[in-house]
């Protein structure tokens, strides 16, 4: 359960004040697949940072699974990030010189899990993201874009987070591969274990979600169920 109450974020650069978010409120129930959509500069990235506990709001409350996240220290935020949140980035952000397995297990390294448990959970996450097993020991810079994003999804899943935050996950992929990645998210969502928050500027991408929150100029413009959900039939690579 994710609750945002009157969230405002203001950046101060010298004398100039920029308001990125103005009085944003919404609630996301567990297991929802939601898209946050808006043009660049709308404040959706700021919102994603706050939802991902990478940043705290200037005012208002952000409550994640009953924990009030505003006003936590850097290290406490880091703890929440590796317990509850999985990130998928536009540019994948994999460690190029590490194997696929190592990349996926990295969050568990910081959680202090023992090596054999890491391996087991990484394997489970890679299966869930549909990564073929013969690639698990490849270095991540030897993979294609679609495969890299699958590895990134597996890395996001390895901690068994309550929320997967995907920031323009299809932005660096061609349409077909992007479609497959979106299908993977839908597949994950169908299992009911993960809330998925997709941040995008494309309506077409947003339409793969159950609900779309429209952001413009730092305010929620529209928040409604997606009437025309696109369902990806075959997400095999």
């Amino acid at each position, binding site marked *: 359960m994710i609750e945002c109450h009157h969230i405002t974020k203001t950046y101060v650069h010298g004398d100039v004040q920029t308001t990125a978010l103005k009085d944003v409120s919404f609630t996301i129930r567990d297991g929802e697949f939601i898209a946050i959509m808006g043009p660049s500069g709308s404040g959706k990235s700021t919102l994603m940072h706050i939802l991902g506990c990478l940043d705290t709001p200037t005012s208002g409350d952000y409550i994640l699974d009953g924990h009030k996240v505003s006003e936590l220290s*850097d*290290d406490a935020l880091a703890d929440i990030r590796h317990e509850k949140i999985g990130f998928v980035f536009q540019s994948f952000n994999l460690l190029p*010189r590490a194997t696929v397995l190592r990349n996926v297990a990295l969050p568990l390294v*910081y959680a202090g899990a023992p090596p054999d448990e890491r391996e087991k959970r990484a394997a489970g996450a890679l299966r869930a993201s549909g990564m073929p097993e013969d690639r698990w020991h490849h270095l991540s810079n030897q993979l294609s874009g679609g495969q890299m994003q699958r590895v990134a999804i597996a890395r996001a899943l390895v901690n068994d987070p309550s929320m997967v935050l995907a920031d323009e996950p299809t932005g660096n992929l061609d349409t077909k591969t992007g479609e497959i990645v979106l299908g993977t998210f839908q597949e994950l969502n169908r299992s009911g274990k993960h809330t998925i928050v997709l941040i995008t500027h494309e309506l077409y991408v947003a339409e793969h979600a159950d609900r779309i929150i429209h952001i413009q100029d730092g305010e929620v413009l529209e928040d409604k169920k997606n009437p025309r959900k696109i369902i990806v039939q075959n997400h095999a690579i």
Partner: protein
Amino acid sequence: MRLGDIAQETYSSLTVNKVRSGLTILGIVIGIGSVIAMVSIGQGAQSSIESNIRSIGSNLLIVSPGAQRGPGVQVSAGRGSAQTLTRGDADAIANEVTGIQAVAPEISRRYQVTARGTNTNTQVIGTVPDYPAVRNVEVEEGGFIADQHLRSAAKVAILGPTTRDDLFGTSTTAIGQNIRINKVDFMVIGITKSKGGTGFLNQDDIVFIPLTTAQRFLSGDEYVTSVNVQTESADVMSTVQADITTLLLERHNIKDTTLADFNILNQADIVATAASVTGTFTLLLGAIAGISLLVGGIGIMNMMLTTVTERTREIGLRKAIGAKRRDISTQFLAESVMLTFLGGLFGIGLGWALAWLVSRFGGLTTTISLQSIALAVGVSAAIGIVFGWYPARRAARLNPIDALRYE
């Protein structure tokens, strides 16, 4: 984060750019290596000088004639070298000054010494039976000068091992043979034990004869070249030195101490002076080498700062997936400490090799103490921490959002 993970991350990031890591390590290798080599050379010089000084005896005062000095101008008052001390002075010192263990006057001069068909130019010392005790001379074979030799001005001689080899070779027995000094025949009655030393400092190229014999047959006068005085303990040396000064001034009828016609060398002073000179020397060498170590440390810092900048996005990602500040700073500190640790390890090897080369070809016995190795390892690890701390802190404090956006 587990230790194994830190090690793995460190290994993989240091091996990405092997040339850069290698060059950075080289800076530390040269720094540590030169510190170890320089300190070992300094300590080697110190111990060799000190052992040289100690080999001439212990608690030793050497009274030698000095030029008489007039106010302002230095006037040479002797025939060639000043001769102002007599055997009477030596006896007076022995009888009238307290705190003295033994007194050994000596006459030393170089003579051509011949034996059957061989000859050598060497130091001939005329002295008394107490000399071996005072000047740390040990007799290997036969005996030293005895009281009866002194009383009868016997023509007997004790050879140093080098002189023995020069005159008789190593195969034949020297004892009982005759040698000729300044056309006077002497019988060899003893050989001293080797004391080492080379060149000017060769204490083995020497011939001892009774003092009375030297005065009667060789120099023909009453003067002695110097008087060696051994005190009872190190504590009384300065008192004894003052007493001897007073006594000799009185005997030589000199009122003004600045006009004294003799000098007293105090062995403790020589040791202290030499120790302070070699200590300063070691410090200087160490400091110069330390500068190169400092430069190596700056190289580490430079490399780590570059690495942090290059890996900004990676740091952002690590933070996003749950790395705490401490995890990030530990990782970067581990890298810089690993660099300096490896540098320290190879540096010890280099320093050891340099010290060995100096011992082998430089004619100076160098000593590598465990202390200097421990110091080098400690210093290199400390450099890793000191110069790695700032870059690591910078990495740990990166804002994950900014770091993820970094191009």
